């Protein structure tokens, strides 16, 4: 799941400037210029990266912003799914915990 230890208070961030994103059909093909890896991201993952690249967020604070970005209600996209998505993106190296909870 996650690449390292985390808690509900962990702040997460993303650096979208290192990503090259090409939308193909409904998939965000994302090239990470730092790792050289290519990822096929769905709309939720892409929205999480977009939100975390504009500010550091916990799971709880990221959720409403992600829902606003994708235009969905929590009933359609539970907070647990957003948390799982952040952890999967952490494992892929596309989001990282902000140092020292800054």
């Amino acid at each position, binding site marked *: 799941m996650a690449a390292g230890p985390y808690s509900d208070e962990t702040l997460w961030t993303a650096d979208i400037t290192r990503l*090259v994103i*090409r939308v*193909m*059909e409904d*998939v965000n*093909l994302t*090239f990470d*210029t730092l790792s*050289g*890896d*290519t990822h*096929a991201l769905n709309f939720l993952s892409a929205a999480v990266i977009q939100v975390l690249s504009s500010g550091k967020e916990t799971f709880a604070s990221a959720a409403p912003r992600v829902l606003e970005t994708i235009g969905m209600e929590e009933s359609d996209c539970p907070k647990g799914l957003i948390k799982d998505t952040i952890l999967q993106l952490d494992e892929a190296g596309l989001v990282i915990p902000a140092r020292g909870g800054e």
Partner: protein
Amino acid sequence: MEHFRRLGDVPYPELAQSLKDGCLEMSLGPFSKRLKANNSQVTEFLQDAYRDVPVRTKLGDITDVAVTIKSPSWFRQYVRRQVVADPGFIVPAVPLPVRLSALSFEMGLNLAVALKCCRLVSFHAAVVGNEKGAIFISAHSGGGKSTLASALMVEGYRLFSDEFGLLDMSNSLLVPYPRPVSLKGDSINIVRDFTGADWLTPVLSDTPKGDIAYRRARPSDIEEADKKLSSKLIVFPVFTKGARPVAKELAKSEALMRLIPSSTNYHLLGQGGFEALTAMVAGARSYEIQYGNTDDSMKIVKDLAAGVGL
């Protein structure tokens, strides 16, 4: 400076001496190669499988790759003779009996191109094309890409490449590299039946990959090796003996993610490789085809090709 000549026009003694001296320069597609071998089997294989390829017997320029076929040790020059391909850098290479020198040469040349090519995105694929565009065939070894490429050649498509799909990063066009088509096992007889025996080299038996023969590129394939094309159709053939023929269209993202693991250098090329691959996939339709015999795969691919205007 010596001009390039058709390899088949070079007298055997001159060719053998040039190879022995490590001075044979071969120009094919995007690569020039310096070849060295003191080995009559390599000389005879080149005269047969590469007879229409331009060469010069005295080095006239710096080459992209250099391949030497040599004995793995002094001892193996004389006792149970073996050869190994030296692509000019350290890489594990299996010594083969001297009777398989042609296979050693082909493997060595594949290795040199796959690992030293940094100007083009290189994929393990076969590519054929006509004036309207190219068909990119991506399959694991044994997936039938060489048989399918050979069959499409009979239908009038020109051979771009068998082991390599080469993508130009500057314009996302596929680059021809018409080396002989490598045929294994049952595909040798299948291809011999529809091309005629004249187009195939003698069979190398009991190699580590089973029986192998090579289908020579036609002179027209070699003459047009500077004409690049965009990919219009990408197919991922899956051979299952006796299977009913089925074609399933793939999402572009899935096609792209399938192609990445088949590249030998994608991870070395960075953003340029990503951009070129994305553009190639965006401009083509992609299908996985399952089939049980060559006739079925041909019918499917011809239908799909017609559907994209090829």
